[in-house]
């Protein structure tokens, strides 16, 4: 493996990890909002 490949894989993984973690947090937000709205809706 060349130095360039190792660097590219490393930084791609770093960005992917942050993006995936942020996406999971936002998905939780969407689920929570949906649930709260459902609870607030009149019977």
């Amino acid at each position, binding site marked *: 493996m060349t130095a360039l490949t190792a660097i590219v894989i490393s930084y791609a993984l770093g960005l992917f990890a942050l993006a995936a973690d942020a996406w999971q947090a936002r998905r939780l937000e969407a689920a929570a909002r949906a649930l*709260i709205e459902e609870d607030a809706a009149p019977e």
Partner: protein
Amino acid sequence: MLTFLKQLGSPPVFFRLSGPAAVWLARAAILLAIPGLWLALAGTPTDAQQGEVYRIIYLHVPAAWMSMFLYSVATGYAVLFWIWRSPVSAVMMRALLPTGAWMTVVALVTGSLWGKPTWGTYWVWDARLTSELMLLFIYLGLMALSSLVEDEHKTDRALALFTVVGMVNIPLIYFSVVFWNTLHQGMSIGAPGAARMAPEMKITLLICTFAVWFACAAIVLVRGRWLLALREARAKWVREI
């Protein structure tokens, strides 16, 4: 100060403040990541001994620091939970775990990719690498425990206890290069007799560290505030969101 900290333990106050805080932290992370990435990949000079591959340091070290730091913060929240049983402490303890696990994965994989050209191997069972791998297993174990039972109130105390117990691994990771002879290099920053870094490399490392720190803090706050809203779904303040 103490009053402010006590107010932060109140779910509605925490929810109200954490939203704008997360936005500002995300903005700060992006503002730092742009120059940080440029400096890391092109702006800093090539290392005299390792060549270009040393540039992995600007991601590997922040990720490794963050993996230990986030666990330490989770332990702080676990202790606070034991003292005050605050729902904010309980959700923050949970919110920190996935981000910490991701940072541990990044530290392990980037370290491995850096190890092959410099040490001649992707992996050795030395104290630093093994204790960091143990940290990943601890994170995964705690995450599994936190999702084991649907009613999270039931697992809060067990989660807090095991988080505090797992904290014993953090000083082991940090001081492993001092306690044992390891293939992993010793401390680069802060320790007496540490290898000296060129100022431009040190500044770049600090910029990248703060970028990762702010990004992780923003993500953890978003996760924490919505875990809190889900947990308190029947409370009046949640219905007013």
